[in-house]
């Protein structure tokens, strides 16, 4: 859309632009509508803090009209795609790392090096963090928060169950789960998601990696039909059969149950502390949240979590402007690139900051240290950089779910997964 507008270069358009330029010099920036779309402000852990941040932006930009639109996380991607198709305005939006490639393929995002300035970004972010939002040489996103999805333990439950040392290997982990079950059969030992295809896919990926299995390589070759993958899936199936994983919960259920000390271990990104605080009575509940490395197959193996990031992007459609002093850029800067805002988010919700100054200020905190340590050895989800990643994730999630809930044998699920992934990847070429 932006390109179409630029092509309107008749004499009247030139005159209009000249007059507009004069107006810009002579007067403060014109009032704009500005639209923010995200999911965090709909979630219990971050809602109050983000509402304050948006109110602060509106107070300091009284001439601009801020509209905040929220969708639940699970419906965010489709709503963004539909708004893109309908050319509905989206100035600033929150995206998960895996949604970036499709929107880049649609040429839907501004290059923030052009909008904000490469020098400004380099001054505020560590180059490694900034690189997370770069695709095809463009800075299409800035990290809002980043870390890894790794193992989280409930200190209160583990102490009560007599687990003195966090498990390092899968063998120790299984023993710890059995110990929890023996201590209290009402407590869920491992809150692995068995509901919600996308969550099952994410969490099973971490377990598959622990067994040395892969799904797809970078060239799109399917690798999942392997003994390691069968071992990983069999491990999960056996945990369900033994009652160490409960059926019928997703991560959102598990967070609530964890906050009530009814779950010993589960996988979660750094937002976990915000949820536990919101559910279990504020910062006093922080002590129960233990951030642990993912257990490995053998002692000495590298623990592999899943790299995880939420980005802020600027869409180039529906009237959204990419001007450096435009309301969109101002909003992005206020919400995502302001050190004071990131400090508040960290203090009130536990959201890990991404700016150099904020990380220098709070980076010594053990909670951040634990998540950053997990992020160092974490990997991107293997489906992330494929344009039909959503379909690939659905296939993986469905087949793992089928095996875990007893609908298919391990062998059948792995073979079907490999065949379906192969078909989907070939169809997308």
């Amino acid at each position: 859309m932006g390109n179409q507008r630029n092509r309107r270069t008749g004499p009247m358009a030139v005159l209009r632009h000249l007059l507009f330029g004069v107006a810009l010099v002579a007067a403060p920036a014109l009032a704009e509508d500005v639209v923010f779309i995200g999911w965090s402000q709909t979630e219990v852990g971050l809602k109050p803090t983000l509402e304050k941040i948006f109110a602060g932006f509106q107070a300091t930009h009284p001439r601009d009209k801020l509209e905040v639109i929220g969708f639940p996380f699970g419906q965010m991607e489709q709503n963004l795609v539909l708004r893109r198709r309908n050319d509905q305005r989206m100035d600033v939006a929150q995206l998960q790392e895996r949604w970036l490639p499709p929107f880049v393929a649609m040429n839907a995002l501004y290059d923030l090096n052009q909008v904000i300035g490469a020098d400004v970004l380099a001054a505020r972010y560590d180059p490694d963090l900034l690189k997370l939002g770069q695709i095809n040489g463009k800075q299409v996103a800035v990290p809002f928060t980043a870390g890894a999805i790794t193992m989280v333990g409930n200190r209160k439950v583990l102490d009560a169950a007599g687990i003195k040392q966090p498990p390092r290997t899968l063998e120790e982990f299984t023993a710890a789960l059995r110990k929890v079950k023996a201590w209290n059969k009402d407590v869920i030992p491992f809150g692995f998601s068995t509901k919600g295809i996308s969550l099952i896919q994410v969490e099973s990926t971490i377990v598959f990696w622990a067994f040395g299995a892969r799904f797809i390589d970078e060239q799109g070759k399917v690798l999942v039909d392997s003994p390691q993958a069968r071992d990983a899936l069999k491990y999960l199936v056996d945990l369900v059969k033994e009652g160490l994983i409960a059926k019928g919960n997703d991560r959102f259920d598990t967070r609530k149950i964890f906050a009530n000390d009814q779950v010993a271990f589960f996988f979660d990104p750094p937002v976990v502390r915000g949820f536990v605080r919101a559910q279990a009575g504020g910062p006093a509940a922080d002590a129960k949240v233990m951030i642990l490395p993912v257990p490995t197959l053998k002692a000495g193996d590298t623990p592999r979590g899943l790299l995880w990031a939420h980005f802020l992007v600027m869409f180039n459609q529906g009237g959204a402007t990419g001007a450096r002093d435009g309301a969109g850029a101002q909003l992005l800067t206020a919400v995502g690139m302001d050190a004071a805002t990131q400090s508040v988010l960290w203090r009130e919700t536990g959201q890990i900051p991404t700016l150099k100054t904020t990380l220098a200020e709070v980076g010594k905190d053990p909670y951040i240290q634990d998540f950053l340590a997990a992020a160092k050895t974490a990997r991107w989800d293997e489906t992330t950089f494929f344009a039909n990643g959503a379909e690939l994730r659905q296939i993986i999630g469905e087949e793992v779910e089928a095996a875990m809930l007893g609908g298919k044998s391990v062998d059948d699920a792995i073979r079907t997964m490999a065949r379906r992934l192969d078909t989907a990847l070939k169809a997308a070429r």
Partner: protein
Amino acid sequence: MAALAIGQPRGAAYLGAQQRFGFLLTVPALVAYGVLILYPFLNSARLAFYRSTLMAPEPVFRGLENFEQLFGDPDFLLSWLRTLVFVGATTALTVALGLGWAIVLNQGFRGARVLRSLSLLPWVMPSAVTALLWAWLLHGQYGILNAALLTLGVLDQPIAWLATGAWAMAAVVLAKTWLSTALVMTFFLASLQTLSSEQVEAARLDGAADRHVIRYIVLPHVRNTLLVVLVLQAMGNLQQIDVIYAMTGGGPVRATSVLSIEVYKTAFQNWNLGRASAIGVLWFLTIAIPAGIYLRTLFRE
């Protein structure tokens, strides 16, 4: 309108003007139908023959490729079967309970009016709220059903109802039945209130038991209503998505993934509009059969 003034001769010109006027009256409805229903439907039917994704700039014509893929996919054929199971079970249960409840409320006992009003509550509630209530009732950890069964000693450990294929299907059938029974009851109650009480009393004087009254008097009386309700319910259940999606999302392992869920997931999770449209066309044909029966019944009456 001048052509319709009193005193004009009633000839062919008058009839023509009357027809034109009649047609003009339907134009707003036809325009709305064309824009809101016919165009999207035809466009969707056209897309069924294209490879089209939400990410791709332009659809590419592929003939019957989407249909061939669907008929070669055992999961899709199973979802068709699941749709029939859901529609059959929900329709039968709703109609049976609705009729039974209408017969009870038609007895005119004290409090029947209050009970009738209360019976409409499930129908008034938003279906998403109903779905979430049922999901909560049946939750594996916190659900009231498990709590009650554990307390009564029926179970020794909780059951994750919505994580087991057969139970999940039973749960969505029950939830949809609970939602729709009130409406069906009102249809039958309206029909029963036109049933002559003398006829029933005469039958009883002749020694007819309750079951005979129902079989030989009530059921023949509500026969036409029954047919209309059956067809309307079958069509509504074929289109059902909200209760199922909110309760199970089509899971576990696609156990409740009926055609409506397949269309939604294929279009808005896999972004494959061409394939979703092909499912939509097959879904339409599935709905068209009961719809045809319904329309024939309606016109015959």
